[in-house]
């Protein structure tokens, strides 16, 4: 337990600036919005001058609150995903690049604990930070939204929760993929990993062209795995407003789906494979 605590603390001490990128960006957005709001107030405008929902079809206010919270959460999810990918390379290869890898591996601590503490920061801690920040955003948006539309709080929080779960799965997937690349490549791991995938995609394309096969596109598949959106089908614009509640309810199906299960399974496989490569490296 003492070792795990020391390892986690060391990972935090060495990687907190990169880990907190979503926080810096969120803080920047808030500061910018606050400055805009203050300037607006100084000029004598109210909040409604900044945000207007006039002209919206009747009954759609619930959907506005839901989709705004979901969109903001998704945007933050995208930032967190990029941050987790960068973090994966940093936690695995940072020691090598700074020529201090041997110091860390010259301690009587198991590889499982070392890799576990690193992976915890890349995935679970990133998801936790994403959850806290996006919840804060959803709360702010819902509170502001409630001054403009008459929908209940639950729509904003449902939008947040659905996007948070979907976003977390994508962070898990991309973080694990980047972890695998970082385990294989010591330098420019994400770029080299993408080049390998590009190579495979080209081979698939050539095979499909020359043999008439129909091997599915790798990038299309990865795109589906990484996609952050919560699927709503059919589009809201063609639905009567009365069905919006049912529609929001049904979008849970896209979250609790086989695609999500596949994301989790692939993430676990990438994590184990990355750890294997990392463990079997030679230290020099």
């Amino acid at each position, binding site marked *: 337990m003492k*070792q795990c*605590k020391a390892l986690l603390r060391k990972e935090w001490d060495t990687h907190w600036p990169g880990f907190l990128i979503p926080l810096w960006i969120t803080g920047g957005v808030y500061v910018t919005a606050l400055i805009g709001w203050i300037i607006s107030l100084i000029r004598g405008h109210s909040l409604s001058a900044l945000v207007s929902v006039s002209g919206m079809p009747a009954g759609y206010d619930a959907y506005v609150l839901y989709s705004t919270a979901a969109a903001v959460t998704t945007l933050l999810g995208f930032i967190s995903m990029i941050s987790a990918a960068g973090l994966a390379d940093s936690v695995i290869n940072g020691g090598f690049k700074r020529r*201090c890898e041997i110091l860390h591996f010259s301690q009587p601590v198991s590889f499982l604990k070392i890799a576990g503490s690193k992976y915890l920061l890349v995935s679970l801690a990133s998801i936790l930070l994403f959850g806290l920040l996006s919840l804060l955003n959803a709360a702010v948006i819902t509170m502001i939204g409630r001054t403009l539309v008459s929908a209940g709080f639950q729509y904003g929080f449902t939008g947040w929760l659905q996007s948070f779960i979907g976003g977390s799965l994508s962070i898990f997937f991309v973080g694990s993929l980047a972890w695998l690349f970082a385990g294989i490549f010591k330098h420019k791991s994400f770029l080299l990993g993408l080049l390998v995938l590009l190579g495979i995609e080209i081979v698939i394309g050539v095979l499909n062209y020359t043999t008439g096969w129909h091997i599915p596109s790798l990038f299309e598949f990865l795109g589906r795995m990484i996609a952050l959106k919560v699927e709503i089908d059919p589009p809201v614009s063609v639905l009567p407003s009365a069905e919006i509640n049912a529609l929001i309810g049904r979008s849970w199906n896209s979250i609790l789906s086989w695609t999500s299960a596949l994301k989790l399974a692939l993430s676990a496989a990438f994590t184990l494979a990355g750890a294997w490569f990392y*463990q079997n490296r030679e*230290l020099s």
Partner: protein
Amino acid sequence: MSEFIYQTSNLTKHYGKFRALDNVNLSLGRGKIIGLLGKNGAGKSTLMRCMLGFLDHQGSVTLGDKVIKHRDHSIFNDVAFIPDVSGLDDRLTVRQTVRYISGVNGRWNEERAQKLLAISNLPLNFKVGKLSKGMKTKLYLLITLSLDVSFLLLDEPTLGLDIAFRKEFFNTILGEFFDESKTILISTHQAEEVEDLLQEVIFIDQGRILLHEDMEGLKTRLRVATLPADREAEILKHQPRLVSRTLGSISAVLDSAIDIPGANYSRANLADLFLSVVGGTNEAV
């Protein structure tokens, strides 16, 4: 006290087609300071890294009864390693570094660490990257010497340090770490800086162990013979591997059993001994 605690058997390491270690067999006992001497690229670092399980290899490495496999962390319950004092994590502060090692290493001796910290004058809140090379040396020594281990491996630890810090480095290790229950293996290509410390010496060249001998025995077995330059032939007929010519005289390291009438004899220094065994020029060691 000299039970063998660290052994390598037929240790061989290839980098592609290059054979970096070639059937290395070593037995290192307890309570010794052992020098591992070799030219650059002789295989010193590779040998140490194989002994620590950092590199995959052929043959075996055992510590006590335990066979050390590739990336076997349990070895560090008994062994501490300093590769080079620049190998600290420059993202951490001094305080974070000390806290980290004390947390992950069960052999940490807090009492000794506090004592070393008190005399080190290390700035605890400074990032390691901002420390001078001398301060880094102190920090690396602090975190290593605070461990209750029986084996200390030093791989060119003073590379890049000025002479004052090199001296301080070895004095601190002798004063704070070494006793008859512990063993130190020092790899270096600067023979003169460790000469007075060593009890055993290992010469390595092209991945092969050429000599592993007690220091005193080696210095008794070999000696430097000096003759006037006009008697050069009397020395050369013994085919010495190292010959030094100075104004009016010629010197060579020869077996002590060889007696040349009229020659002056003196104790060989470690660099001369190394070159007489390995071959090469004085500049190589």
